[in-house]
């Protein structure tokens, strides 16, 4: 009886074992090409409220925007007057005379640039308007709605 049980166990072990005679292996490489990029969100309007001949410098409000760049990718900002085709890298600041209300202002940026982290990073276009400017306005209050040079361009270089 004992001999019969032993033979059965050996047969079961053979049936469960690897029947391959041998093996060999090779390696392979996965090539990934990552093209770095930045995306630029819409820039909120830059707004000035100015009283003719006011003594103090007027600072603009608005101008916020966000940029999302590839992680570790450095980038810089540039500004360009007008809304023509962007010609990178742009300037750090631009000076403009609004052709509707005849007020001079300059635009800059809250930072020269940064390094991408894969997420949206917030910045802003800054604006200043010197004091003691008259401007042109035939009524109690005017806007530059009719200005043809009120649109400008923000450039992200990466």
């Amino acid at each position, binding site marked *: 009886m004992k001999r019969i049980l032993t033979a059965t166990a050996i047969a079961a072990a053979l049936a469960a074992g690897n029947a391959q005679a041998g093996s060999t292996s090779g390696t392979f490489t996965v090539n990934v090409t990552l*093209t*770095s*990029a*930045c*995306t*630029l969100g*819409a*820039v*909120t*309007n*830059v*707004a*000035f*409220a*100015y*009283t*003719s*001949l*006011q*003594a103090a410098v007027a600072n*603009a409000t*608005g*101008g916020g*925007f966000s940029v999302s760049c590839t992680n570790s990718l450095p980038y810089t900002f540039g500004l*360009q007057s007008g*809304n023509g085709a*962007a010609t*990178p*890298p742009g300037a750090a600041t631009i000076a*403009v005379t*609004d052709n*509707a*209300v005849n*007020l001079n*202002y300059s*635009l800059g940026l809250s930072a020269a640039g940064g390094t991408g982290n894969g997420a949206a990073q917030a910045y802003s*276009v800054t*604006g200043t*308007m010197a004091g003691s400017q*008259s*401007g*042109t*306005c*035939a*009524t*109690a*209050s*005017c*806007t*530059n709605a009719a*200005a043809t040079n*009120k*649109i*400008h*361009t*923000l*450039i*992200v*270089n*990466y």
Partner: protein
Amino acid sequence: MRSASFAPVLPALVALLAGAPCWAGSTSENFTVDITITQPGGGSAVTPGSPSPAQPSRPGVCYSRSLSEKTGASVQVVCDSGQFVSIEAVPGQPFLGVHGGAFRYSMSIDRDRTAYEAAAKDPFGWRTGWGTVTMLRLYDVQHAGGPGDFWADRPLELLVSF
């Protein structure tokens, strides 16, 4: 021999490449600058001309004191905006013979009162003009006012630029 001819060019080429932008790309967005300009006190927009050093500059006021001590002078005050200039006394300074409020002025050296009155009634007469001056000084030390004196006889000249 051929490579030697390029030798002077290579450093410049290398320098050019080194100075070239190394940006991989760029993206851009347009944005708008909105401006709202308000007149000081709701008045007219003007640019100060020559502010008196003794007087603080006031918004909306042009100053011209260069001829203020002379008689028989012609003073022209023009603001950059081309809008009207108020003529008034400098605060704290003597100011004689003031007219107030909107007015029509008449300048004449013609002693013929009939001619003066005719011109004064004609809003388009050459001796009359329309203005919104709030204050105006007519002052001539050589013809000080007195009983029987007719101010229109005084040789004054006022040039106001609108």
